[in-house]
Protein backbone atom coordinates (compact mmCIF):
# COMPACT_ATOMS: atom_id res chain seq x y z
CA UNK A 1 0.00 0.00 0.00
CA UNK A 2 2.73 2.40 1.02
CA UNK A 3 4.62 1.59 -2.15
CA UNK A 4 1.72 2.69 -4.32
CA UNK A 5 0.89 5.82 -2.35
CA UNK A 6 2.78 8.22 -4.66
CA UNK A 7 1.02 6.68 -7.69
CA UNK A 8 -2.38 7.03 -6.04
CA UNK A 9 -1.65 10.63 -5.13
CA UNK A 10 -0.50 11.27 -8.69
CA UNK A 11 -3.66 9.70 -10.13
CA UNK A 12 -5.82 11.89 -7.88
CA UNK A 13 -3.83 14.98 -8.83
CA UNK A 14 -4.11 14.11 -12.54
CA UNK A 15 -7.92 14.12 -12.51
CA UNK A 16 -8.31 16.93 -9.97
CA UNK A 17 -9.00 19.75 -12.47
CA UNK A 18 -11.77 17.67 -14.10
CA UNK A 19 -14.05 17.97 -11.08
CA UNK A 20 -14.47 21.70 -11.65
CA UNK A 21 -12.73 23.36 -8.75
CA UNK A 22 -12.97 27.11 -8.38
CA UNK A 23 -10.21 29.29 -9.82
CA UNK A 24 -9.23 30.24 -6.30
CA UNK A 25 -8.82 26.60 -5.21
CA UNK A 26 -6.84 25.81 -8.32
CA UNK A 27 -4.58 28.76 -7.59
CA UNK A 28 -3.93 27.42 -4.08
CA UNK A 29 -3.14 23.94 -5.38
CA UNK A 30 -0.77 25.32 -8.04
CA UNK A 31 1.08 27.26 -5.34
CA UNK A 32 1.29 24.18 -3.11
CA UNK A 33 2.79 22.11 -5.95
CA UNK A 34 5.20 24.88 -6.90
CA UNK A 35 6.42 25.28 -3.34
CA UNK A 36 6.71 21.53 -2.94
CA UNK A 37 9.03 21.55 -5.96
CA UNK A 38 11.22 24.25 -4.44
CA UNK A 39 11.12 22.35 -1.13
CA UNK A 40 12.24 19.12 -2.80
CA UNK A 41 15.11 20.96 -4.47
CA UNK A 42 16.21 22.53 -1.19
CA UNK A 43 15.83 19.17 0.53
CA UNK A 44 18.31 17.55 -1.87
CA UNK A 45 21.02 20.03 -0.93
CA UNK A 46 20.21 20.56 2.75
CA UNK A 47 18.35 17.43 3.81
CA UNK A 48 20.39 14.84 1.94
CA UNK A 49 23.75 16.52 1.42
CA UNK A 50 23.70 18.50 4.68
CA UNK A 51 24.51 21.88 3.15
CA UNK A 52 21.83 24.10 4.71
CA UNK A 53 21.08 26.99 2.38
CA UNK A 54 19.36 30.15 3.60
CA UNK A 55 19.51 31.69 0.17
CA UNK A 56 17.44 29.58 -2.20
CA UNK A 57 15.72 32.78 -3.31
CA UNK A 58 18.88 33.39 -5.35
CA UNK A 59 18.17 30.37 -7.60
CA UNK A 60 14.43 30.97 -7.64
CA UNK A 61 15.00 34.59 -8.61
CA UNK A 62 17.60 33.87 -11.27
CA UNK A 63 15.23 31.30 -12.79
CA UNK A 64 12.34 33.76 -12.67
CA UNK A 65 14.41 36.55 -14.19
CA UNK A 66 15.74 34.26 -16.92
CA UNK A 67 12.16 33.91 -18.08
CA UNK A 68 11.42 37.60 -17.58
CA UNK A 69 14.52 38.88 -19.37
CA UNK A 70 14.01 36.53 -22.34
CA UNK A 71 10.60 38.13 -22.69
CA UNK A 72 11.48 41.76 -22.03
CA UNK A 73 14.77 41.93 -23.92
CA UNK A 74 14.62 39.25 -26.58
CA UNK A 75 10.87 39.18 -27.19
CA UNK A 76 10.84 35.44 -26.67
CA UNK A 77 8.02 33.56 -25.04
CA UNK A 78 8.68 33.45 -21.31
CA UNK A 79 8.04 29.70 -21.50
CA UNK A 80 11.51 29.40 -23.02
CA UNK A 81 12.65 30.40 -19.58
CA UNK A 82 11.92 26.92 -18.25
CA UNK A 83 14.48 25.03 -20.39
CA UNK A 84 16.91 27.94 -20.60
CA UNK A 85 16.82 28.57 -16.85
CA UNK A 86 18.20 25.04 -16.35
CA UNK A 87 21.39 26.06 -18.13
CA UNK A 88 21.56 29.57 -16.66
CA UNK A 89 20.89 28.53 -13.07
CA UNK A 90 23.25 25.55 -13.26
CA UNK A 91 26.09 27.84 -14.34
CA UNK A 92 25.06 30.38 -11.71
CA UNK A 93 24.99 27.66 -9.01
CA UNK A 94 28.38 26.37 -10.08
CA UNK A 95 29.97 29.82 -9.83
CA UNK A 96 28.27 30.46 -6.49
CA UNK A 97 29.44 27.05 -5.30
CA UNK A 98 33.05 27.92 -6.05
CA UNK A 99 32.71 30.61 -3.40
CA UNK A 100 30.34 29.27 -0.77
CA UNK A 101 31.18 25.55 -0.78
CA UNK A 102 34.63 26.27 0.63
CA UNK A 103 32.78 27.00 3.85
CA UNK A 104 31.36 24.40 6.19
CA UNK A 105 28.30 24.22 8.42
CA UNK A 106 26.96 27.52 9.73
CA UNK A 107 29.54 29.48 7.73
CA UNK A 108 28.14 28.03 4.52
CA UNK A 109 24.63 28.85 5.70
CA UNK A 110 25.49 32.48 6.44
CA UNK A 111 27.25 32.85 3.10
CA UNK A 112 24.17 31.60 1.25
CA UNK A 113 22.01 33.98 3.27
CA UNK A 114 24.25 36.82 2.15
CA UNK A 115 24.23 35.64 -1.48
CA UNK A 116 20.44 35.68 -1.56
CA UNK A 117 20.42 39.29 -0.40
CA UNK A 118 23.25 40.24 -2.76
CA UNK A 119 21.17 38.91 -5.66
CA UNK A 120 18.12 40.91 -4.55
CA UNK A 121 20.06 44.16 -4.30
CA UNK A 122 21.79 43.42 -7.61
CA UNK A 123 18.47 42.84 -9.35
CA UNK A 124 17.11 46.10 -7.91
CA UNK A 125 20.05 48.07 -9.23
CA UNK A 126 20.74 46.51 -12.63
CA UNK A 127 17.87 48.57 -14.02
CA UNK A 128 18.87 48.20 -17.69
CA UNK A 129 18.61 44.41 -17.40
CA UNK A 130 15.93 43.73 -14.84
CA UNK A 131 13.88 46.88 -14.87
CA UNK A 132 14.86 47.42 -11.21
CA UNK A 133 12.09 47.72 -8.65
CA UNK A 134 9.54 48.28 -11.40
CA UNK A 135 9.90 44.60 -12.21
CA UNK A 136 8.91 42.82 -15.39
CA UNK A 137 5.31 42.47 -16.52
CA UNK A 138 4.36 39.71 -18.94
CA UNK A 139 1.69 41.54 -20.92
CA UNK A 140 0.29 38.64 -22.93
CA UNK A 141 -0.86 35.80 -20.70
CA UNK A 142 -0.85 32.41 -22.38
CA UNK A 143 -4.00 31.11 -20.70
CA UNK A 144 -6.68 32.60 -18.54
CA UNK A 145 -7.75 29.19 -17.33
CA UNK A 146 -5.63 27.68 -14.56
CA UNK A 147 -5.80 24.08 -15.80
CA UNK A 148 -2.84 24.34 -18.19
CA UNK A 149 -0.64 25.94 -15.57
CA UNK A 150 -1.70 23.23 -13.18
CA UNK A 151 -0.58 20.42 -15.47
CA UNK A 152 2.70 22.15 -16.26
CA UNK A 153 3.70 22.60 -12.62
CA UNK A 154 2.46 19.09 -11.85
CA UNK A 155 4.75 17.72 -14.57
CA UNK A 156 7.68 19.76 -13.19
CA UNK A 157 6.98 18.46 -9.68
CA UNK A 158 6.73 14.83 -10.84
CA UNK A 159 10.00 15.08 -12.75
CA UNK A 160 11.67 16.70 -9.74
CA UNK A 161 10.32 13.98 -7.45
CA UNK A 162 11.59 11.21 -9.75
CA UNK A 163 15.01 12.84 -10.22
CA UNK A 164 15.49 13.11 -6.47
CA UNK A 165 14.11 9.64 -5.78
CA UNK A 166 16.53 8.08 -8.27
CA UNK A 167 19.43 10.19 -7.03
CA UNK A 168 19.12 9.43 -3.34
CA UNK A 169 19.08 5.69 -3.94
CA UNK A 170 22.11 5.76 -6.19
CA UNK A 171 25.80 6.06 -5.45
CA UNK A 172 25.41 9.81 -5.50
CA UNK A 173 22.74 9.67 -2.81
CA UNK A 174 24.98 7.62 -0.57
CA UNK A 175 27.80 10.07 -1.16
CA UNK A 176 25.54 13.05 -0.39
CA UNK A 177 24.46 11.47 2.89
CA UNK A 178 28.01 10.49 3.82
CA UNK A 179 29.03 14.13 3.33
CA UNK A 180 26.08 15.26 5.46
CA UNK A 181 27.02 12.94 8.30
CA UNK A 182 30.75 13.62 8.37
CA UNK A 183 32.70 15.41 5.70
CA UNK A 184 36.11 14.19 6.94
CA UNK A 185 34.96 10.59 7.12
CA UNK A 186 33.48 10.91 3.63
CA UNK A 187 36.75 12.30 2.30
CA UNK A 188 38.68 9.42 3.85
CA UNK A 189 36.31 6.94 2.16
CA UNK A 190 37.47 8.21 -1.19
CA UNK A 191 34.58 10.62 -1.77
CA UNK A 192 35.50 13.81 -3.60
CA UNK A 193 33.46 16.00 -1.26
CA UNK A 194 34.02 19.23 -3.20
CA UNK A 195 32.79 17.63 -6.42
CA UNK A 196 29.71 16.03 -4.92
CA UNK A 197 28.73 19.11 -2.94
CA UNK A 198 28.97 21.11 -6.16
CA UNK A 199 26.78 18.57 -7.97
CA UNK A 200 24.17 18.74 -5.19
CA UNK A 201 24.18 22.52 -5.31
CA UNK A 202 23.85 22.64 -9.11
CA UNK A 203 20.96 20.15 -9.24
CA UNK A 204 19.19 21.82 -6.33
CA UNK A 205 19.72 25.25 -7.86
CA UNK A 206 18.54 24.20 -11.32
CA UNK A 207 15.34 22.59 -9.98
CA UNK A 208 14.61 25.71 -7.93
CA UNK A 209 15.28 27.84 -11.00
CA UNK A 210 12.72 25.90 -13.05
CA UNK A 211 10.12 26.64 -10.39
CA UNK A 212 11.16 30.29 -10.56
CA UNK A 213 10.74 30.36 -14.34
CA UNK A 214 7.30 28.82 -13.94
CA UNK A 215 6.44 31.48 -11.38
CA UNK A 216 7.15 34.25 -13.92
CA UNK A 217 4.89 32.60 -16.48
CA UNK A 218 2.15 31.88 -13.99
CA UNK A 219 2.01 35.13 -12.05
CA UNK A 220 2.83 37.32 -15.06
CA UNK A 221 4.76 39.80 -12.96
CA UNK A 222 8.03 39.66 -11.05
CA UNK A 223 10.11 42.15 -9.14
CA UNK A 224 13.21 41.71 -6.97
CA UNK A 225 11.27 42.09 -3.72
CA UNK A 226 9.09 39.13 -4.65
CA UNK A 227 11.36 36.56 -6.29
CA UNK A 228 14.54 37.30 -4.34
CA UNK A 229 12.66 37.64 -1.04
CA UNK A 230 14.42 36.40 2.06
CA UNK A 231 11.21 35.73 4.03
CA UNK A 232 8.82 34.77 1.31
CA UNK A 233 11.15 32.49 -0.63
CA UNK A 234 14.30 31.43 1.25
CA UNK A 235 12.78 31.08 4.71
CA UNK A 236 9.44 29.72 3.52
CA UNK A 237 11.32 27.00 1.60
CA UNK A 238 13.19 25.98 4.73
CA UNK A 239 9.97 25.97 6.77
CA UNK A 240 8.17 23.83 4.20
CA UNK A 241 10.81 21.12 4.47
CA UNK A 242 11.22 21.45 8.25
CA UNK A 243 7.47 21.09 8.76
CA UNK A 244 7.07 18.30 6.21
CA UNK A 245 10.20 16.33 6.99
CA UNK A 246 13.87 16.86 6.26
CA UNK A 247 15.47 14.19 4.05
CA UNK A 248 12.13 12.58 3.19
CA UNK A 249 10.73 12.28 -0.31
CA UNK A 250 7.16 13.27 0.44
CA UNK A 251 7.88 15.75 3.24
CA UNK A 252 8.04 18.81 0.98
CA UNK A 253 4.51 18.09 -0.36
CA UNK A 254 3.06 17.82 3.14
CA UNK A 255 4.99 20.88 4.27
CA UNK A 256 3.98 22.95 1.25
CA UNK A 257 0.31 22.07 1.69
CA UNK A 258 0.37 23.09 5.34
CA UNK A 259 2.37 26.27 4.85
CA UNK A 260 0.48 27.61 1.83
CA UNK A 261 -2.93 26.83 3.29
CA UNK A 262 -1.98 28.17 6.71
CA UNK A 263 -0.71 31.43 5.22
CA UNK A 264 -3.90 31.76 3.22
CA UNK A 265 -6.11 30.91 6.19
CA UNK A 266 -4.44 33.41 8.46
CA UNK A 267 -4.52 36.03 5.74
CA UNK A 268 -8.20 35.55 4.89
CA UNK A 269 -9.42 35.10 8.44
CA UNK A 270 -7.54 38.13 9.63
CA UNK A 271 -8.42 40.17 6.54
CA UNK A 272 -10.89 42.39 8.37
CA UNK A 273 -8.56 42.90 11.28
CA UNK A 274 -5.72 43.69 8.91
CA UNK A 275 -7.79 46.35 7.21
CA UNK A 276 -8.36 48.10 10.50
CA UNK A 277 -4.80 47.60 11.71
CA UNK A 278 -2.24 47.64 8.86
CA UNK A 279 0.49 46.51 11.23
CA UNK A 280 -1.14 43.06 11.26
CA UNK A 281 -0.23 42.51 7.62
CA UNK A 282 2.58 40.16 8.52
CA UNK A 283 0.60 38.33 11.21
CA UNK A 284 0.96 35.00 9.42
CA UNK A 285 4.69 35.20 9.97
CA UNK A 286 4.09 35.16 13.72
CA UNK A 287 2.09 31.95 13.30
CA UNK A 288 4.85 30.48 11.13
CA UNK A 289 7.42 31.33 13.77
CA UNK A 290 5.43 29.67 16.53
CA UNK A 291 4.74 26.66 14.33
CA UNK A 292 8.44 26.28 13.52
CA UNK A 293 9.40 26.39 17.20
CA UNK A 294 6.80 23.74 18.04
CA UNK A 295 7.94 21.54 15.16
CA UNK A 296 11.59 21.78 16.16
CA UNK A 297 10.77 20.87 19.78
CA UNK A 298 8.24 18.11 19.23
CA UNK A 299 8.81 16.83 15.69
CA UNK A 300 12.43 17.53 14.81
CA UNK A 301 12.17 15.23 11.79
CA UNK A 302 9.01 16.89 10.51
CA UNK A 303 5.54 15.45 10.02
CA UNK A 304 6.62 12.74 7.56
CA UNK A 305 9.89 11.94 9.36
CA UNK A 306 8.20 11.65 12.76
CA UNK A 307 4.95 10.12 11.52
CA UNK A 308 5.33 7.09 13.81
CA UNK A 309 5.78 9.46 16.74
CA UNK A 310 2.61 11.36 15.83
CA UNK A 311 0.68 8.10 15.61
CA UNK A 312 2.02 7.08 19.01
CA UNK A 313 1.06 10.44 20.52
CA UNK A 314 -2.51 10.07 19.38
CA UNK A 315 -2.70 6.47 20.55
CA UNK A 316 -1.46 7.45 24.00
CA UNK A 317 -3.95 10.32 24.01
CA UNK A 318 -6.76 7.93 23.05
CA UNK A 319 -5.81 5.45 25.75
CA UNK A 320 -6.05 8.13 28.42
CA UNK A 321 -9.65 8.83 27.57
Amino acid sequence: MKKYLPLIVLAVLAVLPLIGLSTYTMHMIILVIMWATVGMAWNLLAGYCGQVSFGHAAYFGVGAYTSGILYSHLNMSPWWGIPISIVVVTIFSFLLGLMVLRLRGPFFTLATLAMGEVMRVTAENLVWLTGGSTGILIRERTWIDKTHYYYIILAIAVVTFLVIKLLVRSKMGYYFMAIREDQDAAESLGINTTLYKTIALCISGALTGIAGAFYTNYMGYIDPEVVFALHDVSIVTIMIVMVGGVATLSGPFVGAAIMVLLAELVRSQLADLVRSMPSLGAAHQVFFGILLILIIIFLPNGIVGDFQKIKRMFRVGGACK
Partner: protein
Amino acid sequence: MSLLEVRNISKLFGGLAASSNISFTIQKGEILGLIGPNGAGKTTLFNIVDGFYAPTKGQVLFKGQVISGLKPHQICKLGLARTFQVVKPLQRMSVLDNVIASAFLRAKNKAEAVNIAMETLRFTGLDADQDVISRGLPLGKRKKLEIARALATQPELLLLDESFAGLNHSELNESIEIIRNIKARGITIMIIEHHMKVIMSISDRIVVINYGQKIAEGTPQEIRNNPLVVEAYLGE
Protein backbone atom coordinates in the same frame (compact mmCIF):
# COMPACT_ATOMS: atom_id res chain seq x y z
CA MET B 1 60.28 -1.15 -3.56
CA SER B 2 58.56 -0.50 -0.29
CA LEU B 3 54.78 0.01 -0.28
CA LEU B 4 54.96 3.25 1.68
CA GLU B 5 57.92 5.47 2.24
CA VAL B 6 57.84 8.39 4.66
CA ARG B 7 60.78 10.60 3.73
CA ASN B 8 62.08 13.30 6.12
CA ILE B 9 58.61 14.44 7.14
CA SER B 10 58.30 17.56 9.29
CA LYS B 11 55.11 19.28 10.30
CA LEU B 12 55.02 22.59 12.11
CA PHE B 13 51.92 24.03 13.78
CA GLY B 14 53.08 27.58 14.33
CA GLY B 15 56.22 27.13 16.39
CA LEU B 16 55.34 23.61 17.49
CA ALA B 17 57.03 20.78 15.63
CA ALA B 18 54.44 17.98 15.69
CA SER B 19 56.74 15.89 13.52
CA SER B 20 60.37 16.54 12.80
CA ASN B 21 62.38 14.77 10.17
CA ILE B 22 60.65 11.39 10.44
CA SER B 23 61.56 8.68 7.95
CA PHE B 24 60.57 5.03 7.76
CA THR B 25 59.23 2.55 5.24
CA ILE B 26 56.53 -0.10 5.22
CA GLN B 27 57.02 -3.31 3.25
CA LYS B 28 54.18 -5.07 1.52
CA GLY B 29 52.41 -7.57 3.75
CA GLU B 30 53.75 -6.50 7.11
CA ILE B 31 52.14 -4.98 10.19
CA LEU B 32 53.97 -1.87 11.32
CA GLY B 33 53.20 -0.65 14.84
CA LEU B 34 53.49 3.05 15.60
CA ILE B 35 53.82 3.79 19.30
CA GLY B 36 54.74 6.69 21.50
CA PRO B 37 53.48 8.52 24.56
CA ASN B 38 50.39 10.77 24.39
CA GLY B 39 51.00 13.80 22.23
CA ALA B 40 54.02 12.27 20.53
CA GLY B 41 52.57 13.07 17.09
CA LYS B 42 51.27 9.68 15.98
CA THR B 43 47.90 10.84 14.69
CA THR B 44 49.54 13.87 13.06
CA LEU B 45 51.72 11.46 11.14
CA PHE B 46 48.62 9.52 10.02
CA ASN B 47 46.98 12.75 8.93
CA ILE B 48 50.03 13.60 6.85
CA VAL B 49 50.20 10.14 5.28
CA ASP B 50 46.54 10.11 4.22
CA GLY B 51 46.45 13.70 3.03
CA PHE B 52 44.49 15.60 5.69
CA TYR B 53 47.61 17.65 6.44
CA ALA B 54 50.28 18.74 4.00
CA PRO B 55 53.75 18.20 5.48
CA THR B 56 55.84 21.34 6.07
CA LYS B 57 58.84 19.47 4.72
CA GLY B 58 59.43 16.04 3.27
CA GLN B 59 57.45 13.62 1.12
CA VAL B 60 55.27 10.56 1.41
CA LEU B 61 55.54 7.96 -1.36
CA PHE B 62 52.93 5.26 -1.89
CA LYS B 63 53.80 2.54 -4.40
CA GLY B 64 56.64 4.75 -5.58
CA GLN B 65 54.36 7.72 -6.28
CA VAL B 66 54.55 10.97 -4.31
CA ILE B 67 51.20 11.36 -2.56
CA SER B 68 51.84 14.30 -0.25
CA GLY B 69 49.85 17.18 -1.71
CA LEU B 70 47.04 14.94 -2.94
CA LYS B 71 43.63 15.12 -1.27
CA PRO B 72 42.47 12.34 1.08
CA HIS B 73 39.91 11.03 -1.44
CA GLN B 74 42.57 10.76 -4.15
CA ILE B 75 44.90 8.91 -1.80
CA CYS B 76 42.07 6.57 -0.81
CA LYS B 77 41.42 5.84 -4.46
CA LEU B 78 45.07 4.81 -4.85
CA GLY B 79 44.54 2.14 -2.19
CA LEU B 80 45.25 3.67 1.19
CA ALA B 81 42.45 3.69 3.76
CA ARG B 82 42.33 4.77 7.38
CA THR B 83 40.25 4.64 10.54
CA PHE B 84 39.86 7.51 12.96
CA GLN B 85 40.86 7.45 16.60
CA VAL B 86 37.76 9.46 17.46
CA VAL B 87 35.32 7.27 15.54
CA LYS B 88 33.35 9.02 12.82
CA PRO B 89 30.38 6.79 11.98
CA LEU B 90 27.87 8.22 9.48
CA GLN B 91 25.51 8.61 12.39
CA ARG B 92 22.03 8.65 10.92
CA MET B 93 22.78 5.86 8.46
CA SER B 94 22.53 2.16 9.15
CA VAL B 95 25.66 0.06 9.61
CA LEU B 96 25.12 -1.50 6.19
CA ASP B 97 24.62 1.90 4.52
CA ASN B 98 27.84 3.15 6.13
CA VAL B 99 29.77 0.37 4.48
CA ILE B 100 27.88 0.60 1.17
CA ALA B 101 28.86 4.27 0.98
CA SER B 102 32.52 3.33 1.07
CA ALA B 103 32.14 0.20 -1.11
CA PHE B 104 30.94 2.44 -3.96
CA LEU B 105 34.56 3.53 -4.43
CA ARG B 106 35.36 0.31 -6.31
CA ALA B 107 31.89 -1.04 -7.13
CA LYS B 108 30.48 -0.51 -10.60
CA ASN B 109 26.87 -0.56 -9.46
CA LYS B 110 24.76 -0.72 -6.35
CA ALA B 111 24.34 -4.49 -6.33
CA GLU B 112 28.10 -4.91 -6.33
CA ALA B 113 28.48 -2.30 -3.58
CA VAL B 114 25.94 -4.15 -1.45
CA ASN B 115 27.80 -7.41 -2.03
CA ILE B 116 31.15 -5.94 -1.01
CA ALA B 117 29.51 -4.33 2.03
CA MET B 118 27.81 -7.55 3.16
CA GLU B 119 30.99 -9.52 2.74
CA THR B 120 32.95 -6.93 4.72
CA LEU B 121 30.35 -6.94 7.52
CA ARG B 122 30.58 -10.71 7.80
CA PHE B 123 34.36 -10.47 7.84
CA THR B 124 34.33 -7.98 10.71
CA GLY B 125 31.53 -9.74 12.59
CA LEU B 126 29.04 -6.88 12.21
CA ASP B 127 26.54 -8.71 10.02
CA ALA B 128 24.05 -9.13 12.85
CA ASP B 129 23.98 -5.34 13.32
CA GLN B 130 23.60 -4.37 9.70
CA ASP B 131 20.28 -2.58 10.15
CA VAL B 132 21.21 -0.73 13.33
CA ILE B 133 21.45 3.05 12.92
CA SER B 134 25.12 3.59 13.66
CA ARG B 135 24.48 6.35 16.19
CA GLY B 136 23.15 3.63 18.50
CA LEU B 137 26.18 1.36 18.33
CA PRO B 138 28.31 0.73 21.41
CA LEU B 139 31.94 1.84 21.18
CA GLY B 140 33.38 -1.60 20.48
CA LYS B 141 31.18 -2.00 17.42
CA ARG B 142 31.83 1.55 16.27
CA LYS B 143 35.52 0.76 16.22
CA LYS B 144 34.78 -2.34 14.16
CA LEU B 145 32.59 -0.27 11.84
CA GLU B 146 35.53 2.07 11.25
CA ILE B 147 37.60 -0.94 10.19
CA ALA B 148 34.80 -2.38 8.04
CA ARG B 149 34.29 0.92 6.26
CA ALA B 150 37.98 1.30 5.54
CA LEU B 151 38.18 -2.30 4.30
CA ALA B 152 35.24 -1.85 1.94
CA THR B 153 37.34 0.61 -0.08
CA GLN B 154 39.56 -2.44 -0.80
CA PRO B 155 42.84 -0.86 0.25
CA GLU B 156 46.37 -2.19 -0.08
CA LEU B 157 47.48 -0.29 2.99
CA LEU B 158 45.28 0.18 6.01
CA LEU B 159 46.04 2.78 8.69
CA LEU B 160 44.42 1.88 12.01
CA ASP B 161 44.35 4.66 14.59
CA GLU B 162 43.81 3.16 18.06
CA SER B 163 41.27 0.62 16.96
CA PHE B 164 41.63 -1.15 20.32
CA ALA B 165 41.26 1.75 22.74
CA GLY B 166 38.38 1.33 25.15
CA LEU B 167 37.57 -2.25 24.21
CA ASN B 168 36.90 -4.92 26.83
CA HIS B 169 38.81 -8.16 26.95
CA SER B 170 36.68 -10.25 24.60
CA GLU B 171 36.26 -7.38 22.11
CA LEU B 172 40.02 -6.99 22.19
CA ASN B 173 40.58 -10.61 21.26
CA GLU B 174 38.02 -10.39 18.44
CA SER B 175 39.72 -7.31 17.04
CA ILE B 176 43.15 -8.90 17.16
CA GLU B 177 41.69 -11.84 15.26
CA ILE B 178 40.25 -9.45 12.65
CA ILE B 179 43.60 -7.71 12.23
CA ARG B 180 45.34 -11.07 11.74
CA ASN B 181 42.73 -12.02 9.13
CA ILE B 182 43.22 -8.73 7.33
CA LYS B 183 46.92 -9.44 7.16
CA ALA B 184 46.20 -12.93 5.87
CA ARG B 185 44.34 -11.31 2.97
CA GLY B 186 47.55 -9.62 1.95
CA ILE B 187 46.63 -6.14 3.19
CA THR B 188 49.48 -4.19 4.73
CA ILE B 189 48.72 -2.51 8.04
CA MET B 190 50.12 0.43 9.94
CA ILE B 191 48.65 0.64 13.41
CA ILE B 192 48.78 3.16 16.24
CA GLU B 193 48.18 1.49 19.57
CA HIS B 194 48.70 2.15 23.25
CA HIS B 195 47.97 -1.36 24.37
CA MET B 196 51.54 -2.70 24.64
CA LYS B 197 50.67 -6.36 24.85
CA VAL B 198 48.60 -6.14 21.68
CA ILE B 199 51.12 -4.15 19.68
CA MET B 200 53.98 -6.39 20.73
CA SER B 201 52.11 -9.52 19.75
CA ILE B 202 50.77 -8.47 16.33
CA SER B 203 53.44 -6.13 14.90
CA ASP B 204 56.23 -7.33 12.65
CA ARG B 205 58.12 -4.12 13.23
CA ILE B 206 57.59 -1.11 15.46
CA VAL B 207 58.43 2.56 15.05
CA VAL B 208 58.57 4.63 18.24
CA ILE B 209 58.14 8.38 18.22
CA ASN B 210 58.40 10.89 21.02
CA TYR B 211 58.11 14.69 20.86
CA GLY B 212 57.63 14.39 17.11
CA GLN B 213 60.88 12.53 16.51
CA LYS B 214 61.56 8.93 15.68
CA ILE B 215 63.53 7.50 18.59
CA ALA B 216 63.58 3.81 17.68
CA GLU B 217 62.65 1.28 15.03
CA GLY B 218 62.90 -2.50 15.12
CA THR B 219 61.25 -5.80 15.93
CA PRO B 220 59.08 -5.97 19.05
CA GLN B 221 61.93 -7.73 20.84
CA GLU B 222 64.43 -4.98 20.01
CA ILE B 223 61.96 -2.26 21.00
CA ARG B 224 61.26 -3.89 24.36
CA ASN B 225 64.96 -3.79 25.23
CA ASN B 226 65.68 -0.32 23.83
CA PRO B 227 66.70 2.00 26.70
CA LEU B 228 65.42 5.12 24.85
CA VAL B 229 61.96 3.59 24.57
CA VAL B 230 61.90 2.51 28.18
CA GLU B 231 62.90 6.01 29.19
CA ALA B 232 60.22 7.65 27.01
CA TYR B 233 57.54 5.51 28.61
CA LEU B 234 58.72 5.20 32.17
CA GLY B 235 60.78 8.36 32.65
CA GLU B 236 64.39 8.37 33.70
